């Protein structure tokens, strides 16, 4: 051994992991950003109320037994002329409580959004890793496909996929399958972002010597991509996933608004807005306004959070 003792040892940590995490730059940046704090709170409230919708909602809008047609078109915070019931955000034409439908609708919107982003993420990361690592023809085929898909608006791609999938599913399953088809359509229209970012990060990582060290001991490409490269390309993916989530929620709402998304039996926020806009000019503004405001708050705060995350994780922007 060398005779010089090892003088540069790092001091032993006596703090818990939580205490260390609370002192990190990331948490510091979070505490200093009012936008991040507010949007985080809004997202948390909305997500939690969607998750615990059965506990919060006053009625179950999917249970016909709990509905009273006499309660139809009740304005917010006004007692109904016939039954005397009061509703926080009013009711729609069938007497469904708007507040409850929003909570249940948000569940579907969030579920479709998260599932679509996860699907796009898995697909995009896989194809991005493969094209970045192998290069050559594999890369050319994958990335040119991605480029071609980028030239079409993603909503158009989603509608196309949705239409084809609907065409090949049997009629009796259409309503059940609608949600899954929606996830597939939005996911397939969104993988390009992930694939491009992961590919470029993979190109950087694969030229580093730790990958060479893994190759020379005979590790297979699959193991190198998953265990060595993937952990190092994940942080930009996290940022894109957050921003994509906002876009996926809006895409779902757009499709549902156009009538090709979630069926009226499982209304998402977009379906609720479509139903509501029919009553806008007859004076029942609340059926449209409240779902629309919820969608706006959800998409905007997720997006702002994503923007902040991008800035916080990118040291060059500080």
């Amino acid at each position, binding site marked *: 051994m060398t005779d*010089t003792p090892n003088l540069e040892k790092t001091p*032993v940590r006596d703090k818990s992991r939580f205490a260390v995490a609370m002192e990190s730059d990331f948490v510091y940046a979070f505490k200093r950003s009012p936008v991040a704090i507010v949007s985080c709170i809004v997202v948390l409230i909305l997500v939690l109320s969607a998750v615990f919708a059965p506990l919060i909602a006053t009625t179950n809008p999917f249970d016909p037994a709990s509905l009273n047609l006499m309660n139809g078109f009740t304005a917010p915070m006004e007692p109904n002329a016939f039954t005397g019931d009061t509703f926080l955000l009013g009711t729609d034409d069938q007497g469904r409580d708007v507040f409850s439908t929003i909570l249940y609708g948000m569940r579907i919107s969030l579920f479709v959004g998260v599932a679509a982003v996860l699907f796009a993420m898995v697909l995009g990361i896989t194809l991005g890793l493969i094209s970045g690592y192998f290069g050559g023809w594999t890369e050319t085929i994958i990335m040119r496909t991605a480029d071609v898909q980028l030239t079409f608006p993603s909503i158009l791609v989603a509608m196309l996929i949705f239409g084809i999938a609907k065409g090949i599913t049997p009629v009796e399953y259409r309503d059940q399958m609608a949600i899954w088809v929606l996830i597939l359509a939005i996911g397939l229209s969104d993988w390009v972002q992930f694939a491009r970012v992961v590919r470029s990060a993979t190109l950087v990582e694969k030229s580093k010597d730790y990958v060479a060290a893994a190759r020379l*001991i005979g590790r297979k490409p699959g193991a190198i991509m998953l265990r060595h490269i993937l952990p190092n390309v994940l942080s930009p993916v996290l940022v894109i996933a957050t921003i994509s989530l906002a876009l996926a929620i809006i895409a779902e709402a757009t499709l549902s608004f156009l009538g090709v998304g979630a069926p009226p039996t499982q209304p998402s926020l977009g379906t609720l807005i479509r139903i509501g806009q029919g009553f806008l000019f007859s004076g029942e503004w609340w059926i449209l306004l409240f779902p629309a405001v919820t969608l706006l708050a959800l998409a905007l705060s997720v997006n702002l959070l994503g923007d902040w995350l991008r800035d916080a994780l990118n040291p060059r922007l500080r």
Partner: protein
Amino acid sequence: MDLVKVKNLSRSFDVSKPWLNRVIERQPKLFLKAVSEVDFDIAERSTYALVGESGSGKSTIGRMLVGLLTPSGGNVEIEGVDLAHETDAAKVSAVRADIQMIFQDPYASLNPRWRVRDIIVEPVLARGGETKGLAERLLEQVGLSAEDAGKFPHEFSGGQRQRICIARALSSEPRLIVCDEPTSALDVSVQAQVLNLMSDLKDSFGLTYLLISHDLTVVQHMADRIGVLYLGRLVEEADPDTLFSDPKHPYTQMLLEAAPRLDAFGREVVPPEGEIPNPIEPPKGCAFHPRCPFAVDRCRTERPDLRQIGTSRAACHLAE
């Protein structure tokens, strides 16, 4: 006995423009010959050093030896097995287990998301070996402490990281370690520590080193045999004493002249003349003739072969 036999080894890289540009601009394919017809043997338990300027093909040879690059001509035999052409997978994997590499940049050669323990045992794990307590034992052998196994690479300095790289290289109990400029990214004070560690480990583990370096003092200190590369060709090969006292090739003489020396402060340093030529279109005859002060007409037309001169080998028409 020779552990490594390098025969007529060549490697060229395709540096052509994309196909469409070549068709439009009517240009032929361009190849860069990084290594041409290199021959040398490395005896078991010895240190063979390759020296040369940037772009002389040192690292390319190292990477071909460990199997990261495939030769475009000639072959490398390690323990009698030619890794690039051997078809028996069991033989290849047995030989691969005996080869390891230490890289130049200790910041890029450790995966930043992995704990030191996992990094060190990875070569053993790849072959399904027993890894319990291995990382801790190796860390102590390279002069770090066993507690460091749970840390991440960013918690270490450059010299400490290079020790971790050495520990990783040792974990699969290799016979040959290719060291690609292992100290050039380190502080001068730390360089000596790492080099001393390497020579200690060589004795205790019975290792054979291929040391790639551009630092002549490092090479003089470590090597048993030195090969000097110029533009992808071996121009001289000798043991350190002969090479430093009686360099045969004018290029080696020029390198030794240009090397900084502590005992010669204030001396007039003659900078080497000229640049290393473009390897895509190497000069005809001896590749060194445009920079050589002794060049004669024969040097411009006929390429000199590597000749045995005393105990050294040199590729120069005029050397004797």
